[in-house]
């Protein structure tokens, strides 16, 4: 089974987010970048599938050279090879088109994305790739079993779950549930050593125009100071929620 895991390279969840003085971009100073947490679940799922069915795991990122440590980490966790498409990930459409071109030129049985990148919170790329390639797509995928050429994929839907049966190849936008947190693989010494010699292929991009532009970033307005209410006086809380916050 040939599996492609799409990896985005994002600020660590504990990062303090600041923007450049002109407000045009994220200020990367002091920010540590990691494998997008949703993609970590996908990568571990790919390893489980490979262990059960055999095959190869390729990880891919659309990004500049700064994302290579993230791809190397994915190799250390257990992917067999990595591909970096050397383009600025301008917007989701440009990323999706680059991924589509790569997928068309190679044959994958399964394409695993994360539900969302925690940087720009797009939730766009996987559904776009699926639509461009007319492939079955399970978003918010929390369960996946593969039998021969068919997949059973469970998606979170509002208020519950839905399970789909699809023929491979298919695409998922995965999240926790695909594998459990405790099963997430982390790199060990042997993995780190072997990652150095695993192939990391550099692909030059097609020239693709995006359809959106980020104009400006700002931080949300700071909260006013918290109002404390005595534990013995919950009636006061009810009053404030009703009269002041108009929340009940």
């Amino acid at each position, binding site marked *: 089974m040939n599996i492609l895991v799409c990896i985005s390279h994002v600020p660590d969840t504990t990062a303090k987010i600041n923007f450049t003085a002109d407000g045009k971009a994220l200020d990367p100073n002091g920010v540590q970048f990691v494998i997008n947490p949703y993609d970590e679940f996908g990568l571990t799922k790919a390893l489980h599938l490979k262990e059960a069915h055999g095959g190869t795991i390729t990880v891919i990122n659309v990004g500049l050279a700064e994302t290579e440590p993230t791809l190397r980490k994915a190799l250390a966790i257990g992917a067999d090879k990595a591909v970096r498409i050397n383009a600025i990930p301008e917007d989701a459409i440009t990323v999706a088109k680059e991924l589509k071109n790569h997928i068309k030129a190679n044959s994958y049985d399964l394409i695993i994305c994360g539900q969302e990148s925690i940087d720009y919170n797009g939730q766009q790329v996987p*559904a776009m790739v699926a639509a461009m390639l007319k492939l079955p*797509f399970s978003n918010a995928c929390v369960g996946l079993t593969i039998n021969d050429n068919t997949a059973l994929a469970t998606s979170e*839907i509002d208020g*519950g779950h839905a399970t*789909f049966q699809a023929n491979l190849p298919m695409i998922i936008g995965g999240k926790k549930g695909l594998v459990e947190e405790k099963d997430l693989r982390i790199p060990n010494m042997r993995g780190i050593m072997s990652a150095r010699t695993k192939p990391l292929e550099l692909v030059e991009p097609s020239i693709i125009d995006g*359809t959106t532009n980020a104009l400006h970033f700002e931080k949300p307005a700071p909260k006013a100071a918290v109002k404390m209410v005595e534990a013995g006086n919950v009636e006061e809380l009810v009053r404030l929620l009703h009269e002041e916050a108009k929340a009940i």
Partner: protein
Amino acid sequence: MSVLVFVEDWNGSFKKASFEATSYAKRWANMMDTQVIAVTNNSVSSSALHSYGADHVLQIILAKTGMGIAEQLGTLCSDVDGVVVAGTALGKTIAPALAALNNGSLSTNTISLPLSIAPIEVKRGAFSSKGIETIVLNGELPIISFVPNSIGIEEIAGNGETSAKDVSGDDLMEITEVNVASGKVALPEADAVVSAGRGLKSPDNWGMIEELANVLGAATACSKPVSDIGWRPHSEHVGQTGIQVNPNLYIAIGISGAIQHLAGVSASKTIVVVNTDPEAPFFKAADYGIVGDAFEVIPKLVDALRAFKAAS
């Protein structure tokens, strides 16, 4: 020309987010001096949509999956100025798939009406609510997917036309099973959320949390470790790596307020925190706080709310 809005049905009626989407479309259409076409499932009575701004309701037999519906909408977009989709679970597949099929330019996670229409600019949440991005949609078909509850619903009458049409869309896969908890408020569009963390100490203690949620008509949620240890289902996990919520009221009980938790809930309009530890970081993100033991405070709060509801 027109603004097309996708209207999701739910149990024979519409989702609240669908009315919000329709009224979003109407306000956008008014800025452009054009009409709203609401596309909906043929099995649902459309009349309610007209009071939220639908000028024309187009009833089609909806495909069963987001991919199929996106293809259907795509065939209806040849003469359209823009599309609105609510950011529900289904909408989160439809909007990007439609953008890919029709070379659209898409803003997801949108939290404002259009700030301008030539070019179209909107604000959207980024960096898990740690940032707000202003984005310009400069492709052929602008598509806006907004965060449910972030815009609000306005009643604006639209013209009362309705028609039906046949449009096909390929689902590409088959649904084999659907499990939806009936009667429960769905988290992403809940007006109020009661959420509890490891401070509750055992899954047996959730009775009072559910009671509080019942009084408020709220959805229940939890912190990540609580779902990781299996006290509550994964579908209740909120935060940066869980469901993101922005209700009017978020009550956090026995949750410390780690940065990853706050990232998914800080967009809530009013935040109440109950915690035994006065130094809990959550108080810094709260509007109202009580330092106290949940096991004493919550039953009293339930009583006080019942009394308040009975009196009003």
